């Protein structure tokens, strides 16, 4: 080691200028990012052409192409192809495409935001500015979310608009065009007036309380949908009824009203167009899913210092682990299954939507109406909410921690 005493140093230079002292009064040690940091980070992400194309293609392109094909098909051959929009299209497109792929693309954006400064050598430049590393990390969150959420919102708005403005004029329930939004008495009246359609097409569940057996009404010019005259029917009450040869019009109407009554609750869950409340709820739900995808991608990529592996892991999480763990109860790891963010998100799915991953069951808000697979694993709303908040906080913290401690 050389000591300084034997070294003749040049004469000391000038002291810091007054501007230097002034400069020190900025808040670059603060963990709160400046507006300029957020906007420049937004610019950096926005200028990634390939990433933006992928983001737009998935969140806007796929729904637009799907709906455009349906619009054109319906315009060309309206008898063969139904309207492009409507409630059923909404409930198919949103959980099937926008929810799942929105998460994946948001995760790609997050992983990009979390890793490119490192891989492209800008991280050193940024650290050397003296700016708090926490602020450097946090600036990425609003910037990335602004991109992800706005693209998701545009795609979702297009879907909602088509589903509302290109919806069928009448509700198609069990193959029958029925006015939407009828009260129970109104549906009874309508059923009485269209008894043959109701009897031939609506689901008949049998059961006690029927005034008579299913009538022998010809459906579509062919035989009755009900049992043939002389058939002995086993009722749920344990008795039997023999179908008479002929029924009066009053009997037929009464039976149609009974069937309509049985199906009323199911009818009420069918709409021509999604309600405003549903569209808002679902919009917030897929925006939350995209935000989670972004934040987890950001944190994981910051932790690992690269983009590829985090993206693969998050695709596996979304497309494999979440569907499996949401439907199959493994008692030894039930709490672990509940702790998966995708499972928790299904539990807070807005009512009126089928589950994104199929199967039965549903959340406390009535979600998960469709499918016939295994039931969703049990989880309370509170636990599901805590899991979601926990994932957001954990991955933000882990990404920020790695950002602060990383050697570069």
């Amino acid at each position: 080691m050389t000591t300084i005493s034997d070294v003749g140093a040049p004469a000391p230079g000038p002291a810091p200028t007054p501007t230097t002292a002034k400069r020190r009064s900025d808040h670059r040690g603060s963990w709160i990012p400046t507006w300029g940091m957020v906007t420049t980070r937004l610019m950096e992400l926005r200028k990634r052409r390939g990433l933006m194309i992928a983001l737009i293609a998935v969140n806007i392109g796929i729904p637009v192409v799907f709906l455009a094909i349906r619009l054109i098909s319906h315009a060309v051959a309206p008898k063969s192809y139904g309207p492009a929009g409507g409630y059923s299209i909404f409930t198919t497109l949103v959980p099937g495409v926008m929810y799942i792929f929105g998460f994946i693309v948001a995760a790609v954006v997050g992983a990009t935001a979390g890793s490119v400064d490192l891989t492209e050598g800008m991280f050193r430049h940024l650290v050397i500015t003296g700016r708090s590393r926490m602020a450097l990390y946090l600036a990425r969150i609003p910037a990335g979310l602004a991109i992800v959420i706005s693209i998701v919102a545009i795609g979702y708005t297009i879907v909602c608009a088509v589903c509302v403005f290109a919806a069928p004029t009448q509700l198609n329930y069990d193959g029958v065009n029925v006015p939407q939004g009828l009260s129970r008495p109104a549906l009874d009246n309508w059923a009485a007036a269209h008894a043959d359609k109701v009897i031939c097409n609506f689901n008949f569940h049998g059961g006690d309380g029927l005034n008579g057996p299913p009538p022998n009404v010809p459906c579509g010019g062919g035989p009755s949908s009900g049992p043939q005259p002389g058939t002995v029917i086993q009722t749920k009450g344990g008795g039997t009824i023999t179908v008479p040869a002929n029924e009066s019009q009053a009997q037929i109407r009464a039976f149609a009203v009974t069937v309509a009554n049985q199906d009323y609750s199911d009818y009420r869950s069918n709409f021509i167009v999604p309600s405003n409340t549903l569209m808002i709820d679902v919009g917030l739900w897929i925006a939350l899913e995209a935000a989670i995808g972004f934040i987890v991608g950001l944190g994981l990529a910051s932790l690992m210092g690269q983009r590829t592996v985090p993206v693969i892991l998050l695709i596996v999480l979304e497309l494999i682990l979440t569907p499996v763990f949401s439907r199959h109860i493994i008692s030894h790891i039930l709490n672990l299954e509940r702790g998966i963010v995708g499972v928790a998100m299904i539990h807070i799915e807005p009512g009126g939507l089928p589950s994104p991953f199929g199967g039965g069951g549903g959340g406390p808000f009535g979600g998960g109406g469709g499918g016939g697979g295994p039931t969703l694993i049990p989880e309370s709303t509170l636990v599901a909410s805590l899991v979601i908040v926990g994932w957001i906080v954990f991955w933000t913290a882990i990404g920020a921690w790695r950002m602060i401690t990383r050697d570069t």
Partner: protein
Amino acid sequence: MTDLLASANPKEEWAVETHGLTKRFGDNVAVNDVELLVPRGCAFGYLGPNGAGKTTLIRVLLGLTHADAGTMSLLGHSVPRHRDAALAGVGAIVDEPRFHGHLTGRQNLQILAAAREPEAKGRVAPALERVGILHRADDKVSKYSMGMRQRLGVAACLLGDPQLLILDEPMNGLDPGGMLEMRDMIKSLVAEGRTVMLSSHLLDEVERTCDAVAIVDRGTVIRQGPISQLLAGSSFEVQVECSDPAVAGGLIQRTAFGGHVQVGPDGLAISLPEGTERDAIAEINRLLVEGGISVYRLQHIQASLEQWFLSVTSRLGSPE
């Protein structure tokens, strides 16, 4: 903030000061107990062969990695305790300057300016102009040559109107013209009262650019001080053109000058040991003339920084 202001000592004469600074990577000691004093307002070379620990020391100074032992300060601010206040007055390039390739040079600087004080935003265009790439400022960095990226790195350093610039191998990738411009730029920065600390293994460039140097080898600073002062104490060579080199060589070797005599067809090359006074040259001339040798030319060759560097570092003849 009061604390930060209080941490600065405006009368502090050293731009960089380290004591016992050590950084290890496992068993490898990359920075070994370094005592370094870089005066303000000069160009200071941190000189060493590849793998000597130059970049690691810079990374430690800038807070890019932590030190295992020792203390350090930049511009009078203790680091890492007052790192933000210290780095507010520092601009630096570490390793090869790399930027977002999909953005233009201007946009890259805007990102960096946003992380600095508000005034930095207004310095983007002047910085680009100063390093001579304003005409390419709106081209994507992926289309820049290595030399242009190096210039962009210097422009990034200037955004903070720094009192201290730390440049790691700033001549890398530059053509001769670019090296000349970089040298002039460093001199102009020093002329403005800024301190420039540059690391390099290009001895010639350091000698041309810097006022003072520290020599580092295997993580340890082995010498430091003004170049003129360091070289003044080194060995020097006297070249003699004379009538009978073989006889002249014999005469010199029989004296008490010491050193090494190399006999050539036209004369002698006499290497005199460290500390030899200049009067020795006159003494050699007298000795040869008195010995009947005709002396046609005597030239004093001062050892270059390169020769001095090789003589003091362990790399020469090292098995590695």
